[in-house]
């Protein structure tokens, strides 16, 4: 009998019951909750007269709507200028208070983007099943966990039953062999993977990332990769546990200690695919072939190397795809054949659940230090992923580097990744963004997003256009 994949193991360890029709009940160890996709779930529970099955398995925090200026943040909940946002955040507070759910409220220093805070607090750990009403829940798979986004009806279902109704997905391995070249990061790797397999390439699969280049990444870099599994269509992305994973988890506030720690570590070491595991699909990518990436279209798969030119739609034989390219270029105000380096930049956003951890901020600060934001950049902002990331960065003086260069240093939240708060693009503006989605209007009505790594975003802010970070290092 063939061995098991990591996904097979996690599935089997959480299988409550399997029905003949292929659906199964999967036990959920951790549910993360934020303000946008939970109010209707809490209301549903209340209407049906149900209680959470296991209150302690839930952790909540507001992130999508929170303002990021220190002026608004200094007054906590009452300081939120947007009344509709304030009501939504207050609703989360009220629901959590009523049910006794642990919440890191807006003025708690542990508050931040749910996918940054989960691992940071040890609330998400290897071997767990983790869900959240947010598609970027795949981030937590970097710890060797089964983590994916769910809809609000499912949020309510998990609250009420501690289980998710699911069908087992297929297994896919993306193996990145070799070694990344200098200046090429986890973000470039995942963008290149999405460019290769497409935004629907992972649909129906649980996606495991493996190979030497993945193993060489830090745990934070692995989170960046798993974060964007959903951008390749896969609900769940995951990476096998190794010593780095275990070291990362040790000493976190909610990590086990003492004997329980030893017991957990022993179990976590099994959170790897067996050598003889069989995947339904395997994609192999050479790390050496990956250059710094920039998206030029309105879908993450419309991506190229900084040294490339934008493709000509006329060269595309498939009519639906040609049509997509034409629409994308029209929306982006760009032309086929144009060098990617010539794309203008108006704003720069460094943040989001993809790239707002301390290593991301260090990488950006390293590029920025001693330089000034170019005069054509109307706003360059850095939004740390959590209050603790913010504190750490400030203790290292990173905030001062950014501010001295002309960046705005903000309070933690999702911010301009999806522009639910006041941080957004104006129509026609191009943004070098470290976030995960470049959909039409995503960062603001009519806004044009270009997804890049933190170092590439920082370099774009300094140069006022996209530059090859590898050349900047040599200058």
């Amino acid at each position, binding site marked *: 009998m063939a061995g098991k994949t990591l996904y097979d193991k996690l599935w089997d360890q959480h299988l409550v019951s399997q029905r003949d029709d292929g659906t199964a*009940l999967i036990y959920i160890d951790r549910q993360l909750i934020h303000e946008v996709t939970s109010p209707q779930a809490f209301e549903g529970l209340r209407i049906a007269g149900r209680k959470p099955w296991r209150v302690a398995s839930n952790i909540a925090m507001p992130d999508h709507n929170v303002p990021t200026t220190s002026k608004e943040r200094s007054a906590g909940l009452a300081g939120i200028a947007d009344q509709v946002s304030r009501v939504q955040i207050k609703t989360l507070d009220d629901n959590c208070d009523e049910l006794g759910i642990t919440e890191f409220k807006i003025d708690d220093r542990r508050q931040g983007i749910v996918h940054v805070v989960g691992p940071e607090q040890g609330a998400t750990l290897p071997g767990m099943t983790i869900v959240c009403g947010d598609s970027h829940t795949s981030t937590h798979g970097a710890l060797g966990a089964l983590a994916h986004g769910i809809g609000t009806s499912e949020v309510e279902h998990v609250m009420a039953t501690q289980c998710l109704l699911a069908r087992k997905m297929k297994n896919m391995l993306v193996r990145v062999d070799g070694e990344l070249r200098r200046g090429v990061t986890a973000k470039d790797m995942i963008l290149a993977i999405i460019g290769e397999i497409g935004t629907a390439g992972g649909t129906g699969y649980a996606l495991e990332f493996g190979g030497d280049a993945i193993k060489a990444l830090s745990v934070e870099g692995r989170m960046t990769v798993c974060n964007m599994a959903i951008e390749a269509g896969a609900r769940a992305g995951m990476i096998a546990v190794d010593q780095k994973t275990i070291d990362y988890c040790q000493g976190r506030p909610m990590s086990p200690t003492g004997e329980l720690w030893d017991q957990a570590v022993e179990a976590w070491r099994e959170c790897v695919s067996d050598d003889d595991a069989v995947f339904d699909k395997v994609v192999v990518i050479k790390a050496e072939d990956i250059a710094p990436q920039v998206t030029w279209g309105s879908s993450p798969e419309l991506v190229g190397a900084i040294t490339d030119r934008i493709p000509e739609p006329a060269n595309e034989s498939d009519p639906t795809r040609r049509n997509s390219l034409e629409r994308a270029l029209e929306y982006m105000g760009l032309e086929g054949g144009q060098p990617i380096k010539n794309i203008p930049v108006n704003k720069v956003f460094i943040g989001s659940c993809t790239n707002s951890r301390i290593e991301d901020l260090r990488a950006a600060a390293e590029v920025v230090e001693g330089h000034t934001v170019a005069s054509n950049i109307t706003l360059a902002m850095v939004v740390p992923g959590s209050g603790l990331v913010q504190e750490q960065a400030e203790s290292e003086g990173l905030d001062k580097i950014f501010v001295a260069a002309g960046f705005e240093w903000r309070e933690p939240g999702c911010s301009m990744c999806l522009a639910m708060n006041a941080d957004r693009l104006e129509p026609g503006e191009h943004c070098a963004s470290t976030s995960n989605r470049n959909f039409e209007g995503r960062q603001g*009505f009519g806004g044009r997003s270009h997804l890049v790594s933190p170092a590439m975003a920082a370099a774009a802010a300094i140069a006022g256009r996209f530059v090859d970070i590898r050349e900047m290092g040599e200058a």
Partner: protein
Amino acid sequence: MKAFTTHTGIVVPLDRANVDTDMIIPKQFLKSIKRTGFGPYLFDELRYLDKGEPDMDCANRPLNDDFVLNQADYSEGSVLLSRQNFGCGSSREHAPWALEDYGFRCLLAPSFADIFFNNCFKNGILPIELPEEQVDQLFAAVNAQAGFALSIDLEQQVVSLPDGSTISFEVDSFRKHCLLNGLDDIALTLEDAPSITAFEEQHRIRMPWLFS
């Protein structure tokens, strides 16, 4: 949840691939704490020429006449025809809420994004995957005939065309059962509560650190 048994409706052709959930319902409308009222803002950025905000009265907003929902032939449409990877992007259930609130009951496309697909079934919407060639033929038929309508029979798993021809489709048997009967799956799962409790006790022994 509203049950879905059979439905006949005018087909609205949305001829683009990778229709994402930000397009279906932009984020500013996600600040609502309700499940209803999203219909007027469905495809807001494509449908209107101005920038939509929550609680706006859409009756006086400037319409984008080029967008299919604003064309007279499709104003009564309730079946949406689109291209591959429909519903990609975020997990927001506001997307199917908006489609349902507008009046769509059935979606046809060559493929759907996983989370969106699942969310539809929780809201009385039937998403049907059809082979690319059949979707091409349906686009051609819709474009050739104003008021082109389809009849969908979930029990029989058949889509009927005006000329009497039919297309059969696949649907997961559990989802079909829930949709046909408008069932609340939390109640169904709770019938299994003893299994959940038994599993949880074993799980606690195997992985005690999760419960400390």
